């Protein structure tokens, strides 16, 4: 009995109520407990990656009820990586929030840990309805976090986010009901086993069920044309929360991949074509819309959210190829972009709080600690755009490399490269407006066309004051050191990821591990 599998869910599940009841009036205690738990999650994540690295698929039968009747947690390489990624991101956000965001409203850390619980659960569970529950869990926490700190537009965006996602939940349940009515099961492995045996008379229903689930997962992953909730949400959420959210879209991606690789794409299965031929076009569209948004953005956080959208597009292009190689490349890029985008949001927050008046917009305004912050922003942009030698460049390179075997590679290469170019343009403009032109705003500067002539220079605001940078720097430093690890040791990472995708493309192992756990659940 390997209790490791339950820990990433249980730990936050215990910490969250503790924080809510015991230490809700003392922020210091809350910070101590919360960071301890978050760090614990990192350790657990490492242990999981280590455990899973032997290629064995482990299961955990909750309540000792065997699958497919009870709920099982399944630990394979993919889930392990995702849990570790979540923990790392959580650490970064945790460190950053301690700089003050956690005091802007109540119960920040409780919600934070409920969210982590939901995300980890979604990564680990092997049961479709349980997946739904964990989705709702992370959603409800995200609703709370989204409006943390308040503000008119934030609440409107929050309402849109919640309504759209509630519709999503309804769709999810529809899909579940349909699938249950046809296959009579809720367990993923069991479902995967039965989907190939669905009689012709039921296949249409099956198809509807499966496509509804795909829709929901794409909705979470913000795949065009289901992405509408994303830009407003990310750009209006509190920046640390937005940073945390960058894992939530990945939950959707994960679910999509898990679901398709496990059940839909079986050799000769009747549903192997379902949706897969639509994924790549939509992903390309996502990438295009995203990079267009980057150039079109009118504020820093908007730009960040659109660059996040674009990265989703890139990831899903590589996943949509459904070859082990391309999905491994996609995973690598996912690890990178999750952290890179999150960091960008934190950087932006550092800039925003120092620019009273200009705030989130592009209006050039000199602000304290400008040199340091512009250096940080430059590096952050470098990572996010994926310029050499950043891990993003390596990721894109591998994706291009993995695409070359496909028939439509010229179009895909073109899209990806042009998109990076447009992103580059967007960030070059932002940088020169927010960091360079603002340094001129203090000096007298003849108004220069080409740099968005709509905004005139505001008078330097005296209320802008230097703020502590130690904690934020640590948080960002952690994220970057992870990215640099990715960048310096891509070889080992890739070999792990390639093993991961091999596991994904051998669904029979998953199925037999879950349904015939001959000692598979033992260590």
């Amino acid at each position, binding site marked *: 009995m390997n209790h490791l599998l339950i820990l990433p869910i249980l730990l936050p599940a215990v910490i969250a109520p503790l924080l809510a009841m015991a230490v809700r009036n003392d922020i210091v205690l809350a910070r101590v407990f919360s960071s301890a738990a978050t760090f614990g999650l990192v350790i657990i994540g490492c242990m999981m990656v280590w455990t899973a690295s032997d290629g064995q698929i482990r299961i955990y039968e909750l309540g000792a009820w065997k699958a497919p009747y009870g709920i099982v947690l399944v630990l394979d390489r993919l889930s392990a990586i995702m849990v570790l990624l979540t923990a790392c991101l959580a650490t970064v956000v945790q460190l950053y929030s301690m700089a003050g965001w956690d005091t802007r409203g109540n119960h920040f850390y409780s919600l934070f840990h409920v969210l982590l619980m939901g995300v980890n659960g979604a990564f680990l569970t092997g049961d479709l309805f349980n997946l739904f529950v964990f989705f709702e869990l992370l959603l409800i926490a995200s609703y709370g976090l989204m409006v943390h700190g308040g503000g008119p537009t934030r609440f409107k965006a929050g309402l849109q986010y919640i309504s759209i996602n509630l519709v999503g939940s309804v769709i999810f349940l529809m899909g579940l009901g349909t699938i249950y009515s046809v296959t009579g099961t809720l367990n993923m492995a069991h479902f995967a086993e039965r989907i190939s045996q669905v009689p012709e008379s039921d296949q249409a229903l099956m198809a509807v069920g499966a496509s509804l689930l795909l829709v929901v997962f794409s909705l979470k992953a913000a795949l065009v044309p289901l992405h*509408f909730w994303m830009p407003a949400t990310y750009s209006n959420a509190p920046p640390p929360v937005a940073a945390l959210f960058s894992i939530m879209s990945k939950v959707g991606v994960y679910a999509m991949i898990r679901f398709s690789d496990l059940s839909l794409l079986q050799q000769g299965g009747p549903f192997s074509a379902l949706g897969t031929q639509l994924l790549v076009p939509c992903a390309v569209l996502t990438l295009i819309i995203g990079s267009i948004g980057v*150039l079109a953005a009118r504020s820093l956080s908007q730009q960040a959210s659109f660059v996040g959208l674009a990265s989703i597009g890139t990831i899903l292009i590589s996943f949509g190829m459904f070859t082990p190689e391309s999905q491994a490349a996609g995973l690598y890029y996912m690890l990178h972009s999750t952290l890179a985008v999150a960091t960008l949001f934190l950087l932006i927050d550092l800039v925003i709080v120092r620019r009273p008046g200009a705030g989130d917009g592009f209006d050039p305004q000199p602000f304290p600690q400008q*040199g340091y912050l512009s250096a940080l922003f430059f590096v952050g942009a470098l990572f996010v755009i994926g310029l050499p030698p950043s891990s993003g460049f390596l990721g894109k390179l591998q994706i291009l490399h993995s695409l070359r075997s496909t028939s439509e590679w010229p179009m895909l290469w073109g899209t990806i490269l042009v998109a990076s170019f447009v992103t*580059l343009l967007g960030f070059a403009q932002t940088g020169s407006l927010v960091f360079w032109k603002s340094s001129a705003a203090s000096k007298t500067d003849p108004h220069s066309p080409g740099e968005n002539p709509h905004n005139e220079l505001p008078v330097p605001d005296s209320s802008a004051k230097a703020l502590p940078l130690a904690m934020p720097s640590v948080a960002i430093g952690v994220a970057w050191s992870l990215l640099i690890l990715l960048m310096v040791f891509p070889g080992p990472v890739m070999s792990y990821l390639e093993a991961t995708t091999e596991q994904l493309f051998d669904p029979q192992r998953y199925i037999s591990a879950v349904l015939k756990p001959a000692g598979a659940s033992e260590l």
Partner: protein
Amino acid sequence: MNIALIVLLPLLGSILPALMIRSGRNACVASATVVNFLAFALLLTHVPAVFFYHTTPKISWPWLASIGLNIEFWVDGLGLMFATLILGIGLLILIYARSYLSSADPMGNFYCYLLIFQAAMVGIVLSDNVILLMMFWELTSLSSFLLIGFWSHLPAGRQGARMALAVTGGGGLALLAGVLLLAQVADTYRISEILTRRDLIQNSEWFPTILVLILLGCFTKSAQFPFHFWLPRAMAAPTPVSAYLHSATMVKAGLFLLARLWPVLQNDGLWFYSVASIGLLTMLIGAVIALFQDDLKGLLAYSTISHLGLITMLLGFATPVAAAAAVFHIINHATFKAALFMNAGIVDHEAGTRDLKRLGGLMWLMPVTGIIALIATFSMAGLPPLNGYLSKEMMLEEASHTKWMGLKEVIPTLVTIAAVFSVAYSFRYFFGVFAGRVRHDYPHHPHDPPAGLWWPPTLLIMLVVAIGLRPDLLAESLVKSVTAAVIQDSPPDIHLKLWHGWTPAVTMSGIAVGGGLIVCLLTFVLRMAWDKLPRPDAKVIFDAVVHGLTRGCQLISDGVHNGSQQRYLFLIITATLSFAGWNFLSYPWAHGGRPLQPISTPLVVGWILVVASTILVVLNYHNRLYALVALGVVGLFSSIGFVYVSGIDLALTQVSVEVVTIILMLLTLFFLPKHSQPESRNWHRCRDGGLAIVAGLGMGGMSWLMMTRQWSMESIQSYFLANAKSGGGGTNVVNVILVDFRGFDTFGEITVLGCAGLAIFAMLEGLVRGKLRQRVQSWEPDVTRTADRHPILMVVVTRVMLPMAILVGMFIFLRGHNLPGGGFIAALVVSVALIMQYMASGFAWAANQVRFKYHGLIGGGILVAAATGVGAMVADRPFLTSWHDHWHPPKFLGIDFGDIEAASAMAFDLGVFLTVIGAVMLALAQYSKLGIIAVDAQVNANPMDCDPLNHQSPSTGAKPH
């Protein structure tokens, strides 16, 4: 090993000056210089191996082998020559910049950027892996972006930087695609191997694509027409940067790559006509424009463009000798052009202006500078006995016998014209600045600069003269071995000397010098014609393009994300329906043969009621109170509906949830407007209505299809029915599933509820305490409210109800495991009773009676539930493993309590119970607190308004208007 160090030293060393600046400018410069010098020395250690023993040292470390990206460096003739130029001139530039930069400039950053650039540049020329080369390539674009924008307060600097980044960065991406393709065709990423696979590459179907993409990269980088426009704009950079990046090194990266890939890409077809023609054109245009520049740096910029074109053209000729000429001219141009830029910098620095119109006669004021300029410009003009002359002769020689489309006049003529103009602008530079009478209207008082500024160019000038005088000694072997490296073959038999006899080249350069002199004298005349000429301003076009692009993107992006939730939801639902529908149609299906269930009259009545009230809601949802009542009816009857389909727990839960929900929504309506005006346009309504009907048909149809078919494969349900009693210890299968089989779901579910409670609390706290409190207080209720806030009757009834409700709750709770009921329903019943107290006697009084915190209830509940699970783990069973037993308590007062289920599931259910009460009460209590603030009634500490025992005037809670 130390090959990599040549690159890594400047790269890692770049941090040094940024730090050392803290201990002064000299420390900063010193550190940078040392780094550069070490790298230079390291490089020179390879000279013998390469030039004398003709070996090529290599190193290779694996990095990302799966895609062929490895850290592979090699030093061959070509790389060595370029690296020498980069590091050698770099050294001079570092020293020069020390005196050039003013104390106001952030010198630390400057040297940091400069070293990064240097590292990237050396990386390009030494890397033996195409992808590695690409990485360094993009890195040069980035560092030049930083360097051009170094004076970020100047708009010109910012725009120049952005333009350079856009052009070279964009070209870089094309190049990336190109080299990836190339490597794929050649089936290796190692350059030294690619160079040996000419046939493989030239015979592949992708060759044209590869060539075009790579040329795009090279031409953008080396400012070839029509991408030349960024280079003059880049002159906004500090002069050391212009001298280093934009004449000596970075712009030569494109040429380097052309030379590097020369062996595999060159042919007399596509290659010749693209490369040679573009080169020729660039050379001509550059020379002509240069003549009419008044800004010294502008003149030099265009002359650089023209010379780059010259070299490109030579490489395009695709003959070994031409290649040799190209190599030679690369060296020469680097020497005299860098010297000239530094010279222009000196003039600017000393005289305070770079404007040719305002300059003149400086020869007498600053002789040293004048002599530097004299030699450098004459070399640029190609006058003997300077190195510029030699390579130019070679170029003319090659051009004189090269046919273009079979015409043998085209190239010689055009080349000569270009030469004429280059002589002209060289003369204009020298005579315009230094000759003529002395002027005294300079911003500063010009005199020869400090040594730091003049001896770096002087060193270069010495080279210019020396090479010019004894090329056979100084340059010949170098040029030969480099050429050998370029063509990957034994070098052509060339002899560099001043006098080859009376060749066509001599004639051409004679014409050039003569014509140049005339043109230079006629500059004023030509100038008028030139100014009349309509010329496109690259900057305007570029800005227009970028601005247009941005605007276009904004139009699209704002069009797509217009912030309208209605449209978002419409699109999302439409997408869902169409995707699902499309898949439904593309798969086979058949009607199921399951016998239908009978229809009973009450059922029909209920159906009619439900449907009717639904329609009622839809028709006048504007009138929110009525709509809410109708909604309640729907909820009520649908819960009765559950009874029909044998879901008794469902019915109970639905009813209790319904009650609480309605209370909640009533409280909400208390704040929100009770009515809303119809605002959607009609076609809008029709559109939504249409979608709604489609969705309804779809969902109804699906459920019909599901209900009417037999199970095609056996459902997991039978297992639960079989094991509920034996395994779960309960006869209410649904409840057993909830608390045992799928207890984990329930655990998640109560966490959701608890989390909702907390989130709601947090949100309302923002209203209760936050800056919004005033807004809440100033809020006006839009309906008149009864003065009798706490009707005595209600108070009495609810008091009586409370204990009964709690008793009922316990009953429901206890029987839950075997009969319909359970912790959740019990909790809702109890909380409803509690809410009644709040309603009846008001918030404050009720809150005073509450002895515990609802937060605690939530947390405690979840923890209890978790604890039951962890208890199992302690016994080394999986989380949430249950044990159960029956317990028959002794009769008490003759009452038989029956069989009481004692199962761990019950403890779990207790957790559910607590959490639910906590969440519901926390939310509603906080809500009612908000209400108090909103109507700022004086809070009553008594159970009711008029206490019947002591007769005092009723304290009405109505707001004093």
